[in-house]
């Protein structure tokens, strides 16, 4: 009996790691550029579709498609920040928010026009394979996706800890005035950060294809999911995003299993409200 | 003298640093009382405790006979204490008149009488000609007077001024001093001011409190305080004394 619960929980952890990677992008962007990307999930869905296209056209496995998709999204993020978002950096919060809401609306509906409302299945050859570890049953695609997510996150951590540019970006997040004083090119670093954040989203999107079939309606749902994770884990905390992701992944898996799959988000939203009220800095964030 | 405002043994600590150390003083109704001292002496923290922005760790603040320490800033204002901010905070999107109107609306429920009162206050503060201008378009001296006007419009018994002369040129300082003196003469309003600008302190204050490292090191008339050796040593320097 317990083995079923454990299997469900492990599935949740694996799914949660991919969610966490997506949320990581949001956390990085907010932590540094202080922009609240309300189109985050929509970008993830674009990445899903991009992966879908690469898969159907070139038989490219999503785990491999991750690289070009992430690279593409890096460029998109860089360009977006420079061209559209930069002027909004000092502006009132609600204006930034609305800007990205607009971007999100455009993305979702362009996808709707282009691909139609129905989900596009991505049928992987190993899609139904699973590993058997004793009494536990674990999906192979999820294990691979989770491993890839960890790898990408680790690469990002390494970048921020051990490169000069990474340190420069962290300086901007820590003390913007000081960063300017010592001559850091803030605009360029912001653009870089946005690019990195969206690259995470791109990678996560590619991996999400192994978990769900791309559909335009997923955009807003993933945006909310990313926010729930980031707030619970702590805005601006990279480790928090992953921890939050796992937490949400597990709670949704268990809620879906114990109640009804359609109710799984209810628990996440209730948790969000509780965190906002009781511990707004989340599990690992810093109190602003 | 029955004190309008009295602080007894006020103390505040920030993680081991004693910002205000058992400060005791009284302000009589109708007085102009100044608090001076070097940077870091605890003036701002003291001010915050009087205005309700900080809760004291120890000690009490009494106003018109009732305890006000621990009250929220808006409750303190409703009791009859108006305050200005060191870095002025006008409502940028509102006109000068509307800024003061907001203050006047504390004690008046209809906008019309509140507006009449606001205009009267603007007259007293020499801002009547700018009443239609947007607050964000004002120069610093005008903003400072707007800040005072707004607090004044709440009909306070006590006006707390936080370095209201900072950033003003000598002529502007004199103008502000003249306005405050006139106000005090005409309405009998009590004023407590935190100040660095000694020119203003000497011209305005009836009594002065000197803080250093959070503690009160001298209290008395400006002339007495300015000659106090401890005050000279810690703050003024021998040359500052005429």
């Amino acid at each position, binding site marked *: 009996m317990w083995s079923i619960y454990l299997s469900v929980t492990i599935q949740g952890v694996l799914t949660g790691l991919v969610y966490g990677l997506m949320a990581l992008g949001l956390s990085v962007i907010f932590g540094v550029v202080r922009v*609240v990307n309300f189109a985050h999930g929509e970008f993830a869905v674009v990445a899903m579709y991009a992966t879908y296209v690469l898969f159907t056209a070139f038989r490219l496995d999503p785990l491999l498609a991750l690289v070009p998709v992430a690279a593409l999204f890096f460029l998109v993020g860089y360009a977006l920040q420079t061209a*559209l978002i930069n*002027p909004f950096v000092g502006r009132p*919060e*609600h*204006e930034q*928010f*609305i*800007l990205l*809401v*607009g*971007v*999100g*609306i*455009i993305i*979702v*509906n*362009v*996808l*709707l*026009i282009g691909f139609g*409302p129905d989900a596009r299945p991505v049928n992987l050859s190993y899609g139904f394979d699973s590993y058997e570890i004793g009494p536990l049953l674990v999906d192979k695609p999820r294990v691979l996706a989770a491993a890839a997510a960890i790898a990408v996150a680790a690469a990002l951590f390494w970048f921020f800890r051990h490169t000069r540019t990474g340190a420069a970006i962290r300086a901007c997040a820590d003390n913007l005035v000081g960063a300017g004083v010592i001559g850091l090119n803030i605009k360029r670093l912001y653009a870089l950060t946005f690019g990195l954040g969206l690259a995470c989203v791109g990678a996560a999107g590619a991996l999400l294809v192994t978990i769900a079939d791309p559909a*335009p309606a997923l955009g*807003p749902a993933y945006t*909310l999911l990313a*926010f*729930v994770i980031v*707030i619970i884990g702590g805005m601006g905390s990279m480790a928090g995003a992953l921890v939050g992701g796992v937490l949400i992944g597990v709670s949704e898996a268990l809620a879906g299993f114990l109640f009804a799959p*359609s*109710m799984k*988000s*209810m628990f996440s*939203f*209730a948790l*969000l409200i509780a965190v*906002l*009220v009781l511990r*707004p800095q989340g599990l690992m964030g810093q109190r602003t | 003298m029955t004190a309008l405002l009295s602080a007894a043994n006020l103390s505040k600590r920030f993680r081991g640093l004693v910002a205000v150390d058992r400060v005791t003083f009284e302000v009589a109704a109708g007085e102009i009382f100044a608090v001076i001292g070097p940077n870091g002496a605890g003036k701002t923290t003291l001010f915050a405790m009087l*205005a309700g922005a900080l809760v004291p760790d120890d000690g009490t603040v009494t106003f018109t006979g009732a305890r006000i320490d621990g009250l*929220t*800033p*808006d409750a303190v*204002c409703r009791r009859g204490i*108006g*305050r200005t*901010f060191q870095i002025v*905070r006008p*409502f*940028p*999107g*509102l006109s000068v008149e*509307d800024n003061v109107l*907001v203050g006047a*609306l*504390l004690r008046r*429920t209809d*906008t019309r009488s509140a507006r009449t009162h606001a205009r009267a206050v603007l007259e007293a503060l020499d801002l009547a000609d700018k009443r239609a201008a947007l607050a964000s378009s004002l120069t610093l001296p005008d903003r400072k007077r707007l800040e005072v006007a707004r*607090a004044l*419009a*709440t009909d306070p018994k006590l006006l707390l001024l936080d370095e209201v002369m900072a950033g003003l040129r000598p002529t502007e300082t004199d103008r502000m001093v003249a306005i405050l003196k006139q106000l005090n003469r005409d309405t009998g309003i009590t004023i407590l001011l935190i100040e660095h600008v000694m020119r203003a302190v000497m011209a305005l204050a009836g009594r002065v409190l000197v803080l250093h490292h959070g503690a009160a090191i001298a209290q008395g008339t400006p002339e007495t305080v300015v000659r106090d050796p401890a005050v000279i040593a810690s703050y003024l320097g021998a040359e500052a004394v005429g």
Partner: protein
Amino acid sequence: MSDLWRSVNARGRIVLALVLAVLLALPLVADRYVLSVLTLIFYFAYVGQAWNLMMGYAGQLSLGHALYVGLGGYVAALLWLDFGIGPWLGVFAAVAVAAGFGAAIGWLGFRFGIAGVYFALLTIAFAEFTRIGFDHLGVTGGAAGLFLPFEEKRMGEWWNLRGGQLLFYYLALALAAGAVLLVALIARSRLGYRLIAVREDETAARALGIDAFAVKMAAVVISSAMTAVGGVFYAFYYNNLFPSQVFEISRSIELILAPIVGGLGTVFGPVIGAFVLTPLGEVLIAVTARLGIDAPGVKAVFYGVILIVIIYAMPTGVWPRLAGWFGLRSRSP
């Protein structure tokens, strides 16, 4: 009230009177389609104005306002279906429930210092939670929805909001005009100035004796109550309610478009915004249909683009610009 009329300049008074006269007389010449579009415009002007009170005047960003539309609609619809209580009575219950939720959300937000983006997310969380909840609530019809049946013999019972396009046209017009009047009165009242003060600088406002918590709560409660009335209208006009449609976040976003485009924190902003956006949307759909393009998301893309353009170039909205051009500016906020 006469004060209010006097504060509008002469030109503005003429324009206002003319517009009202035209709108009142329009059903004599316009066809059903035009009236239905206008009804939609009035509806969005109304709920937009309700949201404007909270965001434009109190500065609290709510992205879950569809919650109040849904609650208002469901309460009134259920009272009608299960107890035969007409909407003119049901609206009181609808308002009470919605205002209760609004007060709860406001209390949580303001008491615990949840502001800005976090507050917006709080409102979204409540709306989403309720949406999913209603999907599973049997008594409200669940995901399959709630339907107000079409009863031929009841048509003409205006007190039960059973009627044709004309009834709803005038009702929506009355609601929109009423909302404009209400916000205009609030804006120049003590509450209005205090709301704006809190929005501009809460710390400075508190130093002037304003109980920021009470003021913000007033705004939230009035806003949610107003929106619930819109929900009652919605339920009896469209005669169907689905949780996935009524409480959805895209509905919440839809109703903030008009006030943002028109002008936040202004009395006429939401109305102008609705008059600009809705017809343009309809025209766009008509044009794409005529061109044979089957693109279900075109209107939304268009709205998204407009949103970005406005927030970029004219964040204070279209109305302040227009008012300046046409010399319609009146004194005070």
